[in-house]
């Protein structure tokens, strides 16, 4: 069975085919906090570097990522830290 981190990565990679996608599970750092679950898989940091973000506002980029990850938010994903950059912004242009 896939972990949530793997599902997040796969979903974003499918939505942004040419992107560099990095997913980090931070759930252990939030153990015992509100929103944390004993089984973890609640808090993530995600970086996506994709040319698709060019011309999009920060809010629009995040909404695009949220839309892709809606099923995860619906199943216990509590916190998502997003870094969404174009290759130029990431210094890879």
């Amino acid at each position, binding site marked *: 069975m896939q972990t949530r981190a793997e599902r997040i990565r796969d979903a974003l990679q499918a939505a942004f085919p040419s992107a560099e996608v990095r997913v980090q599970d931070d759930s252990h750092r939030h153990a015992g906090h509100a929103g944390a679950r004993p089984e973890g898989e609640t808090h993530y940091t995600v970086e996506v570097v994709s040319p698709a973000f060019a011309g999009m506002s920060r809010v629009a980029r995040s909404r695009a990522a949220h839309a892709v990850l809606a099923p995860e938010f619906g199943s216990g994903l509590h*916190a998502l830290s997003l870094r969404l950059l174009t290759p130029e912004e990431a210094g890879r242009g």
Partner: protein
Amino acid sequence: MTNPVFERIENEIKENPVVLYMKGTPVFPQCGFSARVVQILSHVGVPFKGVNVLEDMELREGIKQFTNWPTIPQLYVKGEFVGGCDIVMEMYQSGELQALLKEKGIPTSAEA
């Protein structure tokens, strides 16, 4: 049918120039992400209204639908959604947050 809590949110963001929907209060934030935004706003020196979504389940879910944004905190300036913790942090670091407040005519007490 419109969610009745939407009207409350609309009034709140119309009547207050800077509103932060957060977990806990500005003095006692109950979430690290909310605490970080409070810290940034305090550092910039902008007065804001903190609204504790933990006190009201309808608001807690309603604000997510209203903004079309799945997480808390959420910052509104002059009735416009600015972003959550990541965006506010990025905008603060780049100086865009300070520029936005200035452009909207909101006085700040510190030039950070």
